[in-house]
């Protein structure tokens, strides 16, 4: 009851306060970007934010992730099956991922202008799997890299699943005197495997 009152009060106040002029929403679709080499820019942006980028063949994923030596401990996979990795779907509670060494899953779209990679629930299975392990690796096909966020948002449907995210590097902070520290609360390293 009280919440209904607040709702009506706010909506009535907004409706009488808002400008009565009509304004048109700009068309944000179909923006053409001229980017010559999206893959190179994607890579540079990721490296600038502290990620490690590996350009590999489609059948080299397993070898590449097995070579990672950043951290030792249990390794998990999401939507991509890997030998000697535990399926993240098999754990009881996401908190069990605390202290895990590595989590690997697929990304859907990569964005050249900022190095961001879009993925959603069906890729990571547990949302926390992107944040609790010491390292995360995302696998993205070279053909899924688009120039800007405009193309990215055209390709994805943000509400297709309950959770979707752009990841653009390992977790970081500069809250102490603007000094960059990699490994704030989330992963201390992010590997990106670009496959073709």
């Amino acid at each position, binding site marked *: 009851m009280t919440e209904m009152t607040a709702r009506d009060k706010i909506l009535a106040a907004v409706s009488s306060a808002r400008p009565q002029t009509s304004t048109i*929403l700009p068309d*944000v679709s179909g923006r053409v970007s001229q980017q010559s080499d999206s893959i190179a820019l994607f890579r540079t942006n990721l490296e600038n934010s502290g990620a490690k980028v590996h350009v590999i063949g489609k059948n080299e994923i397993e070898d590449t992730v097995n070579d990672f030596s950043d951290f030792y401990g249990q390794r998990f996979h999401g939507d991509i099956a890997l030998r000697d990795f535990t399926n993240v779907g098999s754990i009881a509670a996401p908190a069990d991922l605390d202290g895990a060494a590595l989590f690997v899953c697929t990304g859907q779209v990569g964005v050249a202008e900022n190095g961001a990679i879009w993925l959603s629930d069906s890729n990571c299975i547990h949302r926390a799997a992107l944040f609790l392990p010491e390292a995360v690796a995302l696998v993205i096909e070279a053909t899924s890299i688009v120039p800007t966020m405009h193309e990215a948002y055209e390709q994805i449907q943000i509400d297709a699943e309950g959770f979707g995210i752009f990841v653009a590097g390992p977790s970081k902070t500069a809250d102490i005197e603007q000094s960059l520290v990699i490994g704030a*609360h989330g992963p201390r390293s992010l590997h990106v495997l670009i496959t073709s």
Partner: protein
Amino acid sequence: MKNVSDHAQAASTFVSDAARTDWHDESLWQVRSKRDTAARAVDDWEELRQMASDIKDNVLANLDTYLIQLEKAALANGIEVHWAADAEEHNSIVADILAKNNARKVVKSKSMLTEECGLNPFLEEKGYEIFDTDLGERIVQLLDEPPSHIVMPAIHKKKSEIGSLFHEKMGTPAGESDPQILTEAARQDLRKAFLSADAAITGVNFGIAETGGFVVCTNEGNADLGMHLAPLHIACMGIEKIIPRAADLSVFMRLLARSATGQPVTIYSSHIHAPRPGARIHLILVDNGRSEHLAREKFRSGLKCIRCGACMNTCPVYRRSGGHSYHATLPGPIGAILNPGFDLKGYGDLPFASTLCGSCNDVCPVKIDIHEQLFHWRQVVKEGQAPLGVKAVAATMKRPRLFKLLGSIGKRLARIAPGPARKWLESRDLPPVPRKSLGELLAERESAQSNDRDDRKG
């Protein structure tokens, strides 16, 4: 809360330490420079700003419709929606949700709205355990200070001071001030809180009317660790944070981080549309003076703000007087035009805490006419509360040191300031007697801008 009487007085304490003032100035100038580099790297930057501004104008003109749309879509997604007319209602809704879920331990990520509502002290009073988890916010929480910047809450603190704080609170070695080591200590300390929290409270960067979801952006991953581990997530959103369509995000996501820190995008940009299995999400839509501000024709565009902080980093007064001198949750130029709307008596001094150099307008990603509004507020203050306005100006004028500093930055700014602002800055060593010259300045700028527009038309 607001017992500090005016900005000039508060600033005089800050500038009395000249070395610290220089250091603060330099830190923020660095961020401003990174922003410039990032903006220049985007060909259609100005076009993006215009689009963002147009989208937000459309939002303000249809705010009620979009709010209803957001509510309907969010409910359909399985997100519970609440409405709070003011801070008090907001806080009691949060407390209610926590109580119903038997939640005692709460991890929070950065939210200027909950700062504005005084949520932390309200909950702590009731015995809840609150952990601010953004590193900067954690630092100021442990110091029992408010944030001094909306993007970098502890920008006013030196690493040695943070070192001794962490030594006292987290047992780091005495004298340790390496940011890497201090960050690691906070990481380990807060990881325990994340793993055992009953609830997560986050802010909202963008609410999407079309899809009934919202976006939360961080670099640290702290908001995500909170909301993906706790069984309960409460998201607090000011009603003006709404955007119409999913596609609009492409515009705002290109602008936000570049304007804020000079990064091309935040590390984590999470789009939330439904809780994970077994968890619950509550979204609280908060007015708290926003609808009232919407009615103020000259000032309503302040509600377009996306809280990037760029106007603070570029402001010669903010950089040299520190965020706390604004004695308000929202400091800097944007604070100086929004706070007087909420409390003219308490914040009537803030529109005077500016050189009217116009730099804030130039960097604002949603093109808010900040410095024109500063000028208009000065007139409102002068009309309604002459003594206060005059007092604030007089107090400022009595600080030759602050004045000299401002003059010297003015000259430095002149090298990079565009158009009319440059002219103004070059021609002045000291800020002029406010009343007359401000009028002149505004007139000069307005006519320069309309010439500009005419040029483009022709």
